[in-house]
């Protein structure tokens, strides 16, 4: 049987989202350029991008739904499914590999009782890998939400996580 997800017709972008998105249009020759920023704006408000949001952004920018969806699924920072309150990204690129990101990843997975790519049961944390965060001279590096943490050692992790609860 084909499963059809019915869209929630009560979904509306709020005026803050709308204004922020519309505000961006003037910087570009074509409103399509705002698609990625629009997704980021809505995600900031709601944590992730649901189907309804794709439709709403498409309508607001006058860009086809397919085009918005194609961007939403292409870029790493856009989430098309619910995520935790805090996003933990560990750098898994070469210098952090040499400096032992794997120990950090393992410890995080153990403490949070999830695998990379998953969200904790209480919805507090989502764990993701990321490419080089541009601080290889202070590796290993973690990014939690917008904060960078350098020279991370396994010892520091429990306290670090507590500070985001």
């Amino acid at each position, binding site marked *: 049987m084909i499963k059809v997800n019915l869209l929630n017709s009560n979904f509306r972008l709020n005026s803050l989202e709308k204004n922020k998105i519309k505000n961006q249009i003037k910087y570009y020759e074509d409103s399509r350029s705002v698609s990625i920023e629009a997704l980021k704006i809505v995600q900031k408000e709601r944590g992730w991008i649901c189907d309804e949001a794709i439709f709403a952004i498409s309508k607001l920018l006058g860009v086809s739904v397919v085009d918005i969806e194609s961007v939403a699924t292409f870029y790493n920072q856009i989430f098309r499914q619910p995520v935790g309150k805090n996003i933990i990204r560990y750098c898994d690129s070469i210098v952090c590999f040499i400096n032992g990101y794997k120990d950090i990843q393992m410890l995080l997975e153990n403490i949070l009782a999830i695998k990379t790519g998953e969200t904790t049961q209480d919805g507090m944390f989502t764990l993701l890998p990321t490419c*080089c965060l*541009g*601080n290889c001279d202070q590796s290993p590096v973690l990014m939690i939400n917008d904060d960078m943490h350098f020279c991370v050692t396994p010892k520091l992790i429990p306290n670090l996580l507590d500070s985001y609860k």
Partner: protein
Amino acid sequence: MKKILCTSETHPLTWWLGDNHNNTIWITEYRNKNGYKAAEKVCKNFNPIDVINIVKDSKLKGRGGAGFLTGNKWSLMPQYEKGVNRYLICNADEMEPGTYKDKFLMEHIPHQLIEGLLISSFALQVSRAYIFLRGEYVQAEKILNRAISEAKELGFLGKNIFGSKFTLDIVIHSGAGRYICGEETALINSLEGKRANPRYKPPFPAMVGLWGKPTCVNNVETLSNIPSIILNGVNWYKNLSKSNDTGTKLMGFSGRVKCPGLWELPFGITANELLHNYAQGMKKGLTLKAWLPGGAGTGFLTPEHLNVTMEFSSISNVGSRLGTGLAMAIDNTFSMVSIVLNLEKFFSRESCGLCTPCRDGLPWTVKILKMLEKKRGHENYITLLEELCNQLNTGRTFCAHAPGAVAPIKSAIKYFRSDFEAGLLKNKL
């Protein structure tokens, strides 16, 4: 770290910071140290073509990795036509594993980049420039935003800059994370709100770029070089370097070295000096096994190559690339198989998926390397890897992503074949 005296004459990119590498140079300090003097000179006394000629004469090469002559790239822009928009894009989508230089420049000396953009936009007769910034660079975004408003307040951006007819807006466009956005045509697609797939060249962006308009894309470090070239002249700039590549370059060494970091150095110093005098050599108990000269997409070199000079031609003469100039040390505790596996996982994850050899070939190399790491490789695996490297080489794929991705595999097999052989089933002890 070696104590060095940093002056505007010897370290034009970073002297502003003195010994303190933790601060940001805001506008007052920047102006007190001759900041925006070059832009003023240009707006008041120069024609666009004069600036292009100076940059051409300076032989400045792009600092994004490919090393194309900036002046030549600028000359590709067509004649100015009234009513046709033209764009300059600063490529600040720094995401090359092992590279941390553009972030450094943006977070510490943002006005140098803005002044560079100002002068370059004047030369290219552009009235809107974009900074395509990597989405994760949140701190850089805050700093650039503040710096741009400082510059606007003093009339260095906006209309009639320095009393001239020149107008410029700078817009920060922050991305949403994909390595391929660093490729200039993919970056343009991304800025247009599309998937970051590269475009076919020709036409080059200079003819058909952003929204089909003439567009020039330059790296952060490249643009940051422009103000000092204008202020101090071409001869001075050329004399800075000990090699045919002119000027200075941000160089670094990371990995398990004693003092990983980033320094502004003249082209032509040896990798050995960089590793020993600046990064202080390997950590205690470790020896150097291999090194990458400038990012994940450059081929491995061995300790025997350390006497090679850090410049575009000499590194390519020994079969690698200078890339971004931020070198990385691999120590003797690692098998090259696991190092290469890490790199290929990255490249295969970041393939944009447009062309088949790259989309399918890179995950295949990952599979083979995983088996080798587990010491369960079949007899033909090394040959298979080599064959894949050929299939993914220059000319076989749509863009340079795949050829860059196989450079580390090829060089690792060349210099450390026994590491790979140790992964074969038949050699299992």
